[in-house]
């Protein structure tokens, strides 16, 4: 190797190092800036939005996911460069956005894109920008009264607040009414490619339900109304140690009334053969054989950070325990925010049918801006948006679950069941759909009315349990000791307390004597003088 060659190599190395120094930050910057994936709908919200706005955007994404839409979302600045890739754009309460934003909207409108304005500010700015100031009416009042019907017979009313209200003058479609200053206007209207919902407070269940229905209508490509999805009565979060008699009573009422229902059971990990569990599963088997179906709740997550492997292990254990008792959960129930974390999405991937509960679990939100979970093609049954005390679903844009708590008294349960029965949204049984799940060692499929677990077809007919007269709980001596530790602890605390007091008394006496005998005892130290 000659000297020139060595020099050349060194120069190349230095050049590569310098290039990498410049390029790496650019790469990391690029990875930090959000990529907006192409999808069915783009939701755009204000730059610098706070947590509460993000929560509402997540709620929108959630309900659109249940409707099987691929949704992307981001702030106005993040979305600008990707807007022309979308045909359907929801502009949610946009007040802060870049200057060029309205120009881009104009191009989209010209290209027959569909724009849904939730709120008033952006619509006003946009119409002004496109020299259509005469096309709207502005009312500078903050309070309005909304009126809306979901089933054509019952009117729902509510009070809303906005900074001001804007209404399009010429409209081709309108639904509901919004009274401001005693003047009736539309609640949702459409004119050409522009759709407008003047109210933005999606934390209000009525506004949220209206939004869900209107978005479904906006996205419906045909004439008339979109499909009506069913609702499911769910006896929610039932623990094996709950009153079996009460569960049996509710099940009997539903079975006798030929009402399809779902029992969402909480997972158990040990002692699956205990008599209490056997009795509980006997009721579940009875329900299973008579139109009821079983789903399993996700284990309560207290992990920080979330460990999907541990979660799957627990789920596998719980499913095994139920399966051994002849109970076959068809789906998984998860907290709503499981849709937004990669790890929980990974767990949900093991189940075809997913129920979501209205509660959010303890989970750190991921910084994604698309509903990744959409890709997994789950059958979603979302929590209903409760407008009345019975929790009845008035939203038919996607399948909803109406929860019933076993803790409620029997009369209230009956009222809820009757409200569901008389609702315009039909009730459906889980047995009319296909389901599946897979764990490390288990595969369950339910297809064509046939449930197969690990290759074996399972009999779903009710077989009563056989109980042993004297169940051996295998509580040996050590277990009894461990059971009594709490009592022992209390006793120990008393003993330690008494001993400590005695010791302190001794110390006091000794110190007193030492001080008193000081002049007699000093000879002891003679040796060190």
């Amino acid at each position, binding site marked *: 190797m000659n000297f020139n060659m060595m020099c050349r190599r060194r120069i190349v190395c230095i050049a590569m190092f310098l290039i990498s120094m410049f390029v790496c930050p650019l790469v990391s910057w690029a990875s930090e800036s959000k990529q907006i994936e192409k999808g069915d709908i783009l939701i755009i919200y204000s730059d610098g939005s706070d947590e509460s706005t993000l929560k509402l955007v997540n709620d929108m994404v959630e309900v659109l996911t249940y409707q099987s839409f691929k949704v992307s979302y981001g702030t106005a600045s993040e979305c600008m460069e990707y807007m022309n890739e979308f045909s359907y754009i929801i502009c949610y309460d946009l007040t802060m956005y870049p200057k060029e934003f309205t120009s881009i909207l104009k191009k989209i409108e010209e290209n027959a894109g569909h724009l849904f304005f939730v709120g008033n500010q952006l619509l006003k700015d946009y119409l002004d920008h496109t020299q259509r100031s005469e096309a709207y009416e502005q009312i500078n009042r903050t309070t309005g009264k909304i009126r809306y019907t979901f089933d054509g017979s019952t009117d729902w009313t509510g009070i809303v607040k906005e900074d001001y209200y804007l209404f399009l003058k010429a409209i081709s479609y309108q639904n509901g009414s919004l009274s401001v200053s005693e003047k009736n206007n539309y609640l949702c209207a459409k004119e050409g490619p522009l759709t407008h919902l003047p109210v933005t407070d999606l934390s209000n269940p009525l506004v949220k339900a209206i939004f869900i229905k209107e978005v479904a209508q906006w996205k419906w490509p045909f004439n008339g109304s979109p499909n009506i999805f069913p609702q499911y009565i769910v006896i929610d979060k039932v623990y094996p140690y709950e009153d079996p008699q009460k569960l049996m009573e509710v099940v009997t009422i539903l079975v006798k009334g030929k009402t399809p229902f779902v029992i969402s059971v909480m997972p158990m990990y040990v002692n699956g053969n205990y008599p209490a569990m056997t009795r509980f599963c006997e009721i579940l088997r009875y329900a299973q054989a008579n139109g009821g179906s079983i789903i399993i709740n996700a284990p309560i997550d207290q992990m920080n950070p979330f460990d999907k492997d541990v979660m799957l292990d627990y789920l596998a254990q719980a499913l095994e325990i139920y399966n051994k008792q002849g109970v076959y959960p068809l789906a998984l129930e998860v907290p709503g925010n499981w849709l937004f974390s990669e790890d929980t999405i990974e767990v949900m991937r093991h189940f075809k049918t997913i129920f979501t509960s209205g509660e959010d679990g303890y989970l750190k939100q991921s910084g994604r801006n698309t509903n990744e979970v959409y890709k997994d093609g789950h059958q979603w049954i979302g929590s209903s948006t409760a407008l009345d005390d019975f929790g009845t679903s008035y939203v038919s844009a996607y399948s909803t679950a109406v929860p019933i708590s076993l803790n409620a008294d029997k009369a209230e349960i009956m009222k809820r069941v009757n409200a569901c029965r008389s609702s315009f949204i039909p009730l459906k049984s889980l047995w009319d759909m296909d389901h599946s799940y897979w764990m490390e060692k288990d595969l369950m499929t339910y297809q064509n009315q046939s449930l197969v677990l690990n290759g074996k077809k399972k009999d779903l007919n009710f077989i009563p349990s056989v109980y042993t007269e004297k169940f051996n709980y295998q509580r*040996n001596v*050590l*277990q009894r*000791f*461990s*059971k*009594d*530790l*709490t*009592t*022992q*602890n209390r006793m*120990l*605390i008393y*003993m*330690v307390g008494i*001993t*400590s007091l*005695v*010791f*302190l008394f*001794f*110390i006091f*006496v*000794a*110190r007193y*004597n*030492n001080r008193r*005998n*000081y002049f007699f*005892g*000093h*000879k*002891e*130290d*003679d*040796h*060190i*003088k």
Partner: protein
Amino acid sequence: MSIVDVLALYSIFAIWGLMFINIVFSVGGFIYIMRMYRTDGHKSIPEYPMVTVMVPAHNESIVIQKTMEALLKLDYPKDKYEIIVVNDNSTDNSMEVLKQIQHNNPDFKIIVINTDNIVGGKGKSNALNIALSVASGTVIAIYDADNTPERQALKILVENLMSDDKLGAVIGKFRTRNKYASLLTRFVNIETLAYQCMNQAGRFFFFKLCTIPGTNYVIRRELIDQMGGWDVNALAEDTEISFRLYRMGYYIKFIPQAVTWEQEPQMLKQWFKQRTRWVKGNLYVLRSNFKYAFDPKAGRMRLDVIYYALVYLLMFSSLVFSDLIFMMGVLGFWYVTLGGFSSLLWEMAILLFVLNVAITLSVEKNEFNFSNLVLTFFMLFTYAKLWVLVVLYALIQGVQDVVYKKEVIWDKTERFEEAGVRKKKGG
């Protein structure tokens, strides 16, 4: 219930059980010591017997001068005691130092026996047997070569021995002379007070049981003769001779006023070596006397055998298990799932440990202070943990000795030159 739970449960019961035994001993010890402190420890006897003070010494030139000075100053009739120093196969200048002391104190009866590696060098028991062969006293007093007994110590011990025919031996208290030398000696000082003095006093108070500590004790000559001298195979000749005295029907009394001050190991290595020897010696005694634990004829000695068995089997194993559970728990491998199991158990144990030691410190002058209380707390997590290692090492060595049929060797504790003795704390 997992195996970890079983081990945790075992440790909890063992540690708390032994803790309460120690608490009971502390209560008894406290009462006994307070009662004793109402007197000066002396008893009147018609005549003082002839006493032979025996000092086994192997390479002790650093400390022997001081020891001899203290022995020569003892408040005991000059013509009624003799000092026999067995200069046991020393390779230092002990012989010259001792010769000089003999020369400087012609009025005292000082016998120096210089042994070579054929007769001597076989450990403390052998040296004591050599001294016994030339001793003329009817009472034998033993002092280690690093001891400086207080002036009244011998007199108190002898007076108490002669005042009760059922007493085979009387032991005194030993204190740490170099307690300020290092952190280790401060720990040793606290340990000595708590577990040598208070525990001995408690056992004597309840059961008339004491274990001879190896120094600062007097014993009847006739009993030693009957026993055939000291057991040369025993590394803990003191414990061994205590058990033999019990079996002969005598008891051993603890007198807290008879005090000697001794030099303790300043370095961890020397301390470890010394404690390993003690543990091996005690295990030897336990092994050879365990048969008496279930023998009703053995009398109260059975209690001491059981006590030793509890300390070395139950305490050791439970500490090993609890430390193991703690470490594996911290590493995330093991979990205790016992219902009601809480860290409060450990916290209460720590509280009792500190209070238990605090009682001992409170009865001593200049020992009950903040720094000693803080040291006691830290002792639990540092010094006390070393005990487990010592026992473990001694067990391994013991097994090796049996397997390879090794001869028992007296591993002498190394002495240190003391820079200067502090007159008072902070002085």
